[in-house]
């Protein structure tokens, strides 16, 4: 039996165990099933509660929820790619490109159809999704058809997309969006709940259904778990990889639109830190960098955790430069734990 099951199943560990031994076994099982997230989350809650008495208040936690919408979304997209065994460094640039393109379209169409803001917004959003789909297609085609490593492919595409959005705007924010856009998707509320939170909730549900209840999801896991086995099981592995990158880009586009509504303009510098943060959120949430492993609900928690830590650090008055240092360290720590967890799982 592997270390995994001997630790998890009480039958094989029939030795009468003292409390501390049992506690350690439970911690081990928890670690193998969920990764480092429960431990990190507990540590963060304790530390920040001690540091700031404003941290553990309903107001602050609602605030964290609202702020975390964008990272949660991007992390979901990142997860689909990570599960196939790749990663997408272009998510941040996709957010920026979507923001710029949709804003340009809305700003151009706005004066033409002053009486139909819904149409203007829809067409702008459509343009944003279309350009993001192209980005995803480029990433997926490079990885699946030409065998470029995801690292260099998405890094290159990221540069193309970021450069493209700067080129389109000259670095100047695109203004002149329909006011309804920001009013609804940036600051709107429905039944008292912020619209971005609702959008995220819908996206999370859809992602959960796709990953656990559809053939597409099953194939994403299979390709990441063992691509050769997937191929021998008559799965179209190339198409599955392309789908993963397109899904990731589309979710990034959705994030881009929400952020555009929030800042009321198209900005080429949106989403700069999202690639790193989303990978960190996924890894902390137990998504394996080797592919095949990862769950939607955990990733949502992982992204919440990152925002929670940032929020806590803000309350503890840690400067943003130092926050970058800590976040990078956290990512590396999570990856090291992922490595240890993989070894424990595979019993090597």
């Amino acid at each position, binding site marked *: *039996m592997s270390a995994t099951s001997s630790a998890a199943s009480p039958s094989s560990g029939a030795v009468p165990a003292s409390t501390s031994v049992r506690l350690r076994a439970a911690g081990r099982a928890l670690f193998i099933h969920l990764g480092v997230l429960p431990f990190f989350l507990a540590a963060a809650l304790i530390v920040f509660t001690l540091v700031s008495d404003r941290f553990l208040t309903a107001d602050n936690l609602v605030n964290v929820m609202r702020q975390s919408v964008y990272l949660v979304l991007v992390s979901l997209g990142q997860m689909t790619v990570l599960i196939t065994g790749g990663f997408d460094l272009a998510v941040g640039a996709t957010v920026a490109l979507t923001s710029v393109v949709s804003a340009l379209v809305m700003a151009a169409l706005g004066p033409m159809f002053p009486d139909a803001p819904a149409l203007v917004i829809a067409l702008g959003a459509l343009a944003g999704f279309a350009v993001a789909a192209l980005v995803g297609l480029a990433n997926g085609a490079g990885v699946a058809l030409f065998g470029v490593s995801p690292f260099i492919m998405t890094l290159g595409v990221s540069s193309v997309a970021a450069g493209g959005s700067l080129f389109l705007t000259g670095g100047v924010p695109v203004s002149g969006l329909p006011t309804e856009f920001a009013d609804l998707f940036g600051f709107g509320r429905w039944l008292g709940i912020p619209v971005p939170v609702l959008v995220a909730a819908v996206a999370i549900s859809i992602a959960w259904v796709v990953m656990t209840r559809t*053939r597409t999801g099953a194939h994403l*896991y299979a390709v990441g778990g*063992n691509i050769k086995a*997937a191929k021998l099981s*008559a799965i179209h592995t190339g198409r599955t990889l392309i789908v993963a990158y397109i899904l990731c880009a589309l979710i990034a586009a959705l994030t881009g639109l929400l952020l555009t509504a929030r800042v009321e303009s198209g900005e080429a510098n949106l989403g700069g830190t999202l690639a790193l943060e989303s990978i960190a959120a996924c890894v902390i949430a137990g998504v394996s960098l080797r592919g095949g492993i990862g769950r939607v609900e955990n990733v949502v928690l992982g992204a919440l955790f990152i925002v929670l830590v940032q929020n806590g650090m803000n309350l503890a008055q840690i400067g943003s430069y130092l926050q970058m240092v800590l976040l990078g360290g956290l990512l590396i720590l999570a990856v090291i734990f992922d490595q240890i967890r993989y070894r424990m799982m595979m019993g*090597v």
Partner: protein
Amino acid sequence: MSPPVLIRTVALTKRYPGVTALDRVDFDLRSGEVHVLFGENGAGKSTLISLLAGVSTPSEGEILVRGHHVRFTGVADARAAGISAVFQEFSLVPTLTVAENLFLGDEPLSGPFLDRRAMRRKAAALFADLDFAIDPKRLVATLSRAEQQMVEIAKALHGEVGILILDEPTASLTDREVDHLFAVIARMKARGVGIIYISHRMQEFARIADRVTVLRDGRRIGTVAMAETSEAALIEMMAGRAIAEIYPSIARSPGPVLLRTEGLRAWGVHCVDLEVRAGEVLGVAGLVGSGKSRSFRALMGLLPIQAGRVTVQGRDLTGATTREVMRAGLCYVPPDRKTEGLQLAFSTRDNLAQGELAGTPSRFGLLPWRRIRKRCEATAERVELPPAYRGRAVGKLSGGNQQKALFGRALGRDYDLYIFDEPTVGVDMGARAAIYRLIRELAEAGKAVVVISSDLPEAMNLAHRLLVFAHGRIAAELEGDAISEAAILSHFFDPIPSAAIPSVPTIDQEARLPA
């Protein structure tokens, strides 16, 4: 009236760069028969089934399924034609559950959604039908190799299967599990399924085979009815005239003990005591997962040692790094040249140079490239690599020449003890003979040579002394005339000693390498 022909191949040929893996093979499979493919490693069996299963496409020739020409572009096409294959290399995803694996690529749906209930129900029904006791909810990574094999077979059998291909399905099964599998095969036969069966275990043929086709060097040597042939006749067909010449007789002059292990324990290795002497060839036989390869990988520092002692020429090297062990004079040539052995993108010369680097001192921190080049050429001569191949990327060479390059690299430095793990997997006859000559040369020059091999004739014919591994232990040590096929096979299935072992590992490193 003979039963209908399910598959027929006409002059089926598959060429890879530098090698013809399958050469104008005619083959047919009838409904309700077990047709065994028999031949040495590299004879073309795996190539033939990969063509029939749609994994690769033929260079020339035709495949007819039930009289219709087919041209498979992928596994899905073959499956649609009712052909299902169980490969040696498992097509299971370790991170998914048993049920998810069973229906991989063919998931039951209700509307746009996966029908998980149907999946579990069908899985349970399939296992009940096959009489397998495996919980469909378990993760494949937690299954034993034998259980994985059963899942693999169940996976091949779900849906409309008319033709079943089994590649060495019994390699990791116990006798009881083999009986079980054969019962399943009998039931399939009764339903009219045609079965192509690959195995090295001749004692199985009499139990299940209807016909046997023998392949050698990519060609079909003949097809015979099992009832009208004998093991001896099949072996003769398999090996051909070459058998007498191919194994050299190696002079034995045992010297001092170079390597000794005492109570060696590692993952899947339980208490191994062995000695390797200079000037003799030590053969190591055993099934996949018997610990034969892992024992040596452990002492080479490739697997963590849990307990025991390793001494090299009296020096304690327990738990030393691979580099330290190599510096002490041991060289391990891995079984899988593609993933562990060679730099596939490098030229053959540069691969040989890697071996030289270990033995050439630099001058003022600079590498003496001219001298290295010269020595590489000499090594290439020694391993009989044709000059035309020396500048080509090693990944483009045939298996035989790749293996020669791998051996050449090991010769770059003067080691005292060579461990060759599966030295002739997927290697043609000519290269095989060259490799055996090299082994003789080394042993007669006073080196200690260990040959770990799943190829029984190879282990038997080269070894002066033979260790038989079973269940992570040495089951027997045979010497000289006592080395016989019957003696070896009888120990392969030695029962697990009653001094119960902690339980056999589930995921083993060795299992991922070709047997």
